[in-house]
């Protein structure tokens, strides 16, 4: 059934302070809406419960990308077009640029925001695996002040997160310490544009003398929310990459991955493909070593 626009209240206070005051006055009563690429879809399908919506679109304090000496801060209101166009991100955090280019289509990237992608908390979120392997931190704000938490601790369950009812996601902070890392990101979906991931895997690693000395692995669509793969990392850290290590890493990932069957794929397919992606990354590390 088509959604009824009159069923919803919507205001656009225009400034961050005004939004935070509103969230503080009536905690849990207002749903922030940025580019609408999620909520408007639910609305169109008649799936959006009657809501009080507060628009974040066009609030200048939220739409920024700030480059510092040691990190890049991405405002929650930055769109994926903003990310794709940012040279510093392309140069220093190429997996973020790559992930941004996969989100929907150009028209979706013009409207979809980083904050929306993370707060929505889809298990298949395109930007999440890249943020996880870059050790992103999330800055949350409220009238009470601001706090930062590791992005790896942000999602707490299916579409649940660590935000309090009066808080807003303000920015994602990405440390610039991955220039020496080998980096990997691949998404498998039905087609290149528009498709939601069946599975995606991201990795950052350092290999010294054939041994994995530093490693982060993260995946989309292998659990109820985008997540680091700590057990699979443990199976690789400190190990020399060879056929045996690759096999034990695949086994660790098979044990750690908890995907589901849904409209886009099956748990079985997701597990197999995730293992293949992991193996592809590890073999890239091997061939890189041979080449140097």
């Amino acid at each position, binding site marked *: 059934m088509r959604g009824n626009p009159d069923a919803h209240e919507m205001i656009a206070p225009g400034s961050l302070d005004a939004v935070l005051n509103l969230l503080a006055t009536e905690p849990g009563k207002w749903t922030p809406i940025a580019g609408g690429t999620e909520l408007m879809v639910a609305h*169109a399908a008649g799936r959006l419960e009657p809501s009080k919506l507060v628009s974040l679109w066009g609030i200048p304090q939220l739409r920024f990308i700030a480059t510092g000496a040691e990190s890049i801060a991405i405002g929650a209101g930055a769109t994926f077009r903003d990310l794709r166009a940012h040279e510093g991100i392309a140069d220093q955090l190429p997996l973020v640029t790559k992930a941004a280019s996969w989100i929907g289509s150009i028209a979706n990237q013009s409207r979809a925001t980083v904050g929306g992608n993370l707060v929505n908390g889809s298990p298949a979120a395109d930007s999440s695996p890249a943020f996880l392997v870059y050790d992103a931190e999330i800055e949350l704000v409220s009238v009470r002040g601001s706090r930062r938490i590791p992005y790896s601790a942000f999602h707490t369950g299916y579409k649940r997160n660590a935000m309090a009812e009066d808080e807003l996601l303000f920015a994602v902070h990405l440390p610039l310490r991955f220039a020496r890392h080998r980096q990997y990101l691949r998404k498998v979906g039905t087609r290149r544009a*528009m498709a939601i991931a069946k599975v995606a895997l991201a990795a950052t690693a350092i290999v010294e003398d054939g041994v994995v000395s530093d490693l982060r692995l993260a995946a989309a669509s292998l659990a109820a929310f985008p997540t680091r793969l700590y057990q699979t990392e443990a199976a690789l850290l400190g190990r020399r990459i060879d056929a045996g290590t690759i096999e034990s890493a695949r086994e660790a990932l098979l044990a750690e991955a908890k995907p589901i069957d849904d409209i886009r794929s099956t748990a079985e397919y997701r597990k197999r493909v995730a293992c293949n992606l992991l193996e592809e990354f590890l073999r890239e590390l091997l061939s890189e070593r041979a080449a140097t």
Partner: protein
Amino acid sequence: MSDCQSTIRFCVNGQNCTVQASPMKRLLDVLREDLHLTGTKEGCGEGECGSCSVRMNGELVNSCLVPVLQAEGADIQTVEGLGAIGALHPLQQAFLDCGGAQCGICTPGMLMAATQLLAINPHPSLGEIREGLAGNLCRCTGFIRIFDSVIAAAASTQNQSSDQAAHAR
């Protein structure tokens, strides 16, 4: 339920407009129902097909996903703002010449996505054209004639500018 109608002002195809609408009314519906600009089509209604593509503040958007309140103060271009009978936009002419339109439902969105692409990248490669139009689905042409149309439009604009440059010399 909210009976609250908002007064929203924006500019469409160079003309200032004021509409009274529910803030959650889709920009698509405001364009078609309130402003009678029916060139913009509804396809899927969920941001997947691109039929409702318009340009808002120089960016391509799916007008089915824009609550009209967020269009306050915006500069919007729809297919009606591209060209007119007898004075077609180079892209419209190229779609005619190359058979880029069949049933026509996707065509306004294709034209707007192609306009956006050429505004940023006047001489795109085939790969860039495919990416620029990847959010616009066509179920008639098989896309090849649409890509040909964009290539032809880019070339005609290039010819026009080189003609102008020649005249200037």
